[in-house]
């Protein structure tokens, strides 16, 4: 985009919008708020550097996620996106407990079942097996960045401490 219609970034930065402007495809002039919020949180030059380091086909997704993160940080200046991660992690923990209860119940039923009763179509539940999705998928290296133990405890719980 160039010529008469500068993109939202160049409008905000008050500069000429070049034909090869890196922001133009992702920050159209009809949505000034989108760039404003990303600029506020990350800074235009940082965003430009980040986009330049990515192949073109990944830049749109990168911009979307940066906008999401910037919005989250403006809404919650302390926790930002990490607040959402913490909330979802708690949800996963609660659901894991519910699943464990359901698995225990079906195990009891299977152990008590009459041999005459038909065997279940589904595979038997192995009490020692947890589906891989229940294992904590977050690598342990995420734990080591925090200098405050509050964050580690509140966001990852004690199980994740390596």
């Amino acid at each position: 985009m160039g010529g008469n219609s500068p993109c939202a970034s160049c409008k905000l930065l008050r500069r000429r919008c070049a034909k090869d402007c890196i922001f133009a495809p992702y920050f159209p002039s009809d949505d000034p708020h989108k760039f404003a919020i990303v600029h506020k949180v990350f800074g235009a030059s940082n965003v430009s550097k980040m986009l330049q380091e990515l192949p073109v086909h990944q830049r749109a997704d990168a911009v979307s996620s940066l906008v999401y993160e910037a919005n989250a940080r403006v809404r919650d200046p302390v926790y930002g996106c990490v607040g959402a991660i913490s909330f979802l992690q708690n949800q996963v923990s609660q659901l894991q407990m519910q699943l464990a209860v359901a698995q225990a119940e079906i195990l009891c039923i299977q152990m008590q079942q009459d041999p005459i009763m038909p065997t279940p179509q589904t595979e038997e539940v192995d009490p020692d097996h947890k589906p891989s999705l229940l294992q904590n998928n977050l690598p342990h290296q995420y734990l080591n960045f925090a200098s405050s133990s509050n964050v580690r405890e509140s966001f990852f719980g004690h199980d994740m401490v390596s």
Partner: protein
Amino acid sequence: MSNSSRCAACKSLRRKCPQDCVLAPYFPSNNPQRFSWVHKIFGASNITKMLQQLPVELRGEAADCMAMEAYLRVENPVYGSVGIIYQYQQQIIEVQNEIIKINGEIAVYNALLQHQQLQQHQDSFFSTDNDFNL
């Protein structure tokens, strides 16, 4: 503050570290990597501005969260922390589906058990041992 006790931020920015340095409490010199992530993604002046806008008692948590977001973005330059959010959302859907499946199996078992118990009850009621044929 002498050169040897500069915080990670001031060391990285090659400047003096004043006594009231905003970043010093949250970017100690023994963890330079933490500041380098934050500097790369947010920029030193942005992070200083964001911390200054917060009451002092909340700055520690905020710095930790920003460090985490920066690290996640360095690790995954396309999706950053949104990638983790997406993973958790997918995990939630999978676990919920698993729970629904198992609850369904429990319901089937209970129904079969009830049916079997009813059958046994009827069989014992109509067995030839009952002295109804007078």
